[in-house]
């Protein structure tokens, strides 16, 4: 957002980071235990791991770049 205050992009980063960590962690749990949801297709691709990882990386980038108080 233009002007003062916390930028929109920081909030987006926080949300992506939270979601990324949650989903990535579940993916690791799934891989470690072999406990896959029975009705879901293509579990062999381990989607939660790579998709959660992508969200985490994007979240970190946005949080760092747009953190409050950082000089623009």
């Amino acid at each position, binding site marked *: *957002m*233009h*002007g003062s205050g916390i930028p929109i992009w920081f909030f*987006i980063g926080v949300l992506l980071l939270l979601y990324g960590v949650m989903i990535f962690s*579940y993916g690791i749990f799934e891989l470690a235990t072999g406990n896959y*949801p029975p009705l879901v297709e293509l579990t062999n*691709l381990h989607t939660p791991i790579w998709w959660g990882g992508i969200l985490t990386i994007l979240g970190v980038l946005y949080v760092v770049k747009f953190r409050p108080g950082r000089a623009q």
Partner: protein
Amino acid sequence: MFGLVPALPAAGALAHIPALLAFSALPLAHLSPLDMAVIVIYFGMTVWIGFYLKGRSNTSEEFFMAGREMTAWIAGLSFVSANMGSLELMGWAGSAYQYGILATHWYWIGAIPAMLFLGLVMMPFYYVSKTHSVPGYLDLRFGGAARSVAAVSFATEMILMSGVNMFAMAVVMKVVLGWDITFSILVSSVAVALYVGLGGLRSAIFNEVLQFVLIWGGALLVPILGLVQAGGVEGLKTRIIANLHTASASIAPDSYFHLWRDTGHFAANPMGVHWTGIVFGLGFVISFGYWTTDFLVVQSVLAAHNLRAARMAPIIGSFFKMAVPFIVILPGLLGLVLLQNPDHSRRQLVGEDVVKSCVVSASEDKVADPQACATAMQTKSTLTPEYQKSVLTGAPGTELHSYNEALPLMMVRYCGPGLLGLGITALIAGFMSGMAGNVSAFSTVWTYDIYKPLINKKGSDSHYVLVGRLSIMIGVAVSIGAAYLVMHAHGIMDYVQALFSFFIAPLLGAILMGMFWKRATAPAGFLGLLIGIITSVSLFVWVKFSPAAVATVALSPDATDMSANLYRALWAFLTSVAVIFVVSLFTKPRPVAELDGLVYGATKLPKEPPVVFYKNEYLWAVLVVVIFATLNILFW
């Protein structure tokens, strides 16, 4: 015709609530604690954003116009996101399932040219005139009468559109989670009323950008994984052609993959449209009407911090708009071949009315009205006789799902714990962004264009902010009732298209004549708008009560409801333009000096400071045109 009945009494809509609540389809999935956490975090953040921004929404300029301090990127993403409600996600995924790639026209020719026209040609007039709304522009150009007609019709449309969003979201909750429809509508309504009521347009824009990111993060997986399973694009094509051998003999099996090739005749393509309807009805009237005069989307751009940002915003938005079919149209097509029944046979989706005819009795666990169900399935679906029999006998796993459920069904197919929560959150976010845009625009138009000029002209600034907040609460409450009207619709999109042609097409005629013809007069603007709306509603009612009239309205007896909507919009637009032209010739025009900032040729636009080439809006507009042309040729 399966569209909204404008004069439908509230009692008629309420009569269908018990039937809808009686849906007894088993939920497709049960949310895990992880999914619930994802959804709760999203709701928590949106409400918190509302409270955070409340302190920055104290004046009317801040509350209704977001302080006019948005950058081009934020305004551009918000501009596109405001259009990503139920209409964008479920409606068009369902339409792609029904009509194939033809549904993409609503994203490309039905959006891109108009978005560029808004940014490069019209935006300077909106921005320089400093209007707070589109009806506000009409007030400056044509006077209070035209403004009032536009404001009342727009406010009505916003309430109904908000109802569409609520209904679609409730359907998602019903299909995926088994949640009660009314409960879902109430939860989403309260959240939207809270965060828009507190933070105003700034909060709506803020959340729209947030939701834009979520929609891509949550919905992008479905087409990626779907394509992997279908064997890529070629595999998808092969399987669709193999599965659709029962389609009409006049439609080529590969017609689902062509945008233009089969539009030379109404009966030659799945949608039953003609290219003239697509180009002139959709590509010009409906598209230009929606993207350039519908305040729902224009409000984000008006909040830009300078003219260059206001011009760049729609251009930035157009890049993303061209990409949206990947997460909406493609899942619909994939659903055609990948969705399966429990016995692994291909699952066929049906219209909303067929689903309602086959509601299962809660007490007997069988179809409540077998006769109506059998008739509906025979006349309005392509279900096999064996499957129809299974439905009637209540065999396990044979519940019916509508076209509009294609996208959530695909999500359930590929998303496990966490990812399903993200996908559902993406849908909720999409619906809520649509609702937020609706109620925010409604609040501005109600306060500035109805309440202030017609009810209380002398209120203080804080009084109008209070009225704005209250109108959001009331608007949400009224749109809850409107949500139940949608239950009469065969497909959500047909309903929305009918609405567009009532209000948007005549409004486009008035705005274009006012903005580009100095001679257009105030009485002409008012009459053109009014008669255009009357024409559109009359044509709708005519076809409703005399279906054969579609041959006259849409120029062919083979035209579908969708096609009739396109042509009705075209006639309403032409009527509006013709009335304005004729009446203007017989009435006295305003002096040209009074039209500064309002009309092309009478306005001296401010000089913008030069920028480096890669920040020039014309460069990016040319790039959009090249990509747009390439896509249309590729999928010809």
